[in-house]
């Protein structure tokens, strides 16, 4: 249990901002998150879209060596 008198309490490991490494101050983070809401819905629709076995269009090629 955290100490309520601690002026700098440890961040909960479950805090979403902590999990995502969001280092903006809370007021700015709120503004950005609010502006992101419509985009988040578009990305959510993509998450729910079923794609069967399509290799991501990102192909790694080792650097160097003979062509």
């Amino acid at each position, binding site marked *: 249990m955290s100490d309520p008198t601690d002026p700098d309490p440890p961040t909960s490991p479950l805090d979403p901002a902590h999990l*995502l*490494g*969001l280092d*903006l101050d809370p007021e*700015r983070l709120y*503004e*950005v*998150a609010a*502006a*992101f809401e*419509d*985009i*988040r819905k*578009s*990305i*959510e*629709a*993509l*998450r729910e*879209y079923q*794609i069967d076995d*399509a*290799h*991501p*269009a*990102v192909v790694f090629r080792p650097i160097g060596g003979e062509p």
Partner: protein
Amino acid sequence: MSELWKEPITELVALLRTGKVSPVTLLETYLERIAAADGALEAYVHLNEGARTQAEAAHKALRNGDDVGPLTGIPIAIKDNYATSDMPTTAGSKVDAGVRPVDANAVARLRAAGALLIGKTRMHEFAWGMETPPCANPFDLTRVPGGSSGGSGVAVAAGMAAAALGSDTGGSIRIPASMCGTVGLKPTFGCIGRSGIVPHSWSLDHAGPLTTSVGDAALLTAIMSGPDAGDPGSDGRQLDFGALKSAMDGGATGLRVGLCRNHFFDGITPGVAAEVERTINALSAAGAQVTEFTVPALSVGLGAIFAIELASSTVFHDARLRRGEVSNFSPDVRLLVEMGRFVTGSDYLKAESYRRHLGEIFAEYFENIDVVVSPTMPLVAWEKGERQVEIDGVPESVLAVSWRLTYPWNLLGLPAISVPCGQSDGLPVGIQIAGPAFGEAKVMRAAAAIETLIGRYPKANIETTHQ
């Protein structure tokens, strides 16, 4: 010869080669237009002090009958995110973009072909946006020219350069082309090397020209294509202008035109829809075979391009974010750059899987059609400061509407061109033609057929605009 600024490059080259016009006279023609109009239009952020010296050298070479490049003496404007050795590069930002003064690959190729660099054009900051403030649309100064290559669209439309370079991540060449009545071509991903262009989103960014005619777009794209050792996305193959020119002579007869009736024709303003349908009917009457189809998978494309574009831009600006420099960005761009941290790694890879999935669907359609035709944009140029538009009774953000028909071709990396096809409310309307990977010849054939049927859009009458 008093209206040289209206002529396409293909005509200007003939005038220069035969000595009927000198490169110095041609340069001065554009500079006079800039002096008269750019105070109100604000298309340029920098004029090249060395351009006159370059024009004099071109004049001497032409007069001596030297073996010169195909663009010798042609003044071309460069979007301000292409690095140039003789002009500063800001990418439209007050924050230092950290660009070395070495010609970008595409600029070097133009220069080697003899082009004169007349100046750098205004762009929306770091290529994030569709308005390019404070640039004005040359057909109505109260309206925006589009973006992010807005200054390039204005420079060509107002006869302040023979052509201009743009870059296109979600529509940034085709959108200002559509809104300013010019031709704008985004060739296949990998066709024009991008080294020396300030990145926005590595796998979506394309280089390309904004021009007066379809032929000019083919010429400049062929010259700029080819290998670029500094761009891992470069395909390496060189387009042949002669082959493109032959294709452009093919006309509409037998051309297989596909209309993807969902997404690309949804939520279009009546004036734009009327002009585009009229053009499609003209193509059909001229002998094109028109096929209609639908691609339901397009319904989630917006999430895919946002996931890739936001995450990429945030990674590119990561050091600036950590140093707090983004507080000096304009508010709209700062918001987008900060937002990218909300995109997860799995979102990004899902978006990349989706690209392949969507690409396989369109590749199958392109086995039976040559090109896909649609409006370039659902609307014409909007008023500066306007934030919403109502289409079919549904209010939408103008920014969300503006790139809806262009971004799918960035996700797919396929060639797409915007060609003027008429006007609505006195403002230009563009029609978009896309083709299969490295199917530039098919795209240019359809574009040339439309240009022949409809005619080129007139240049902006800046004398009238000023009144």
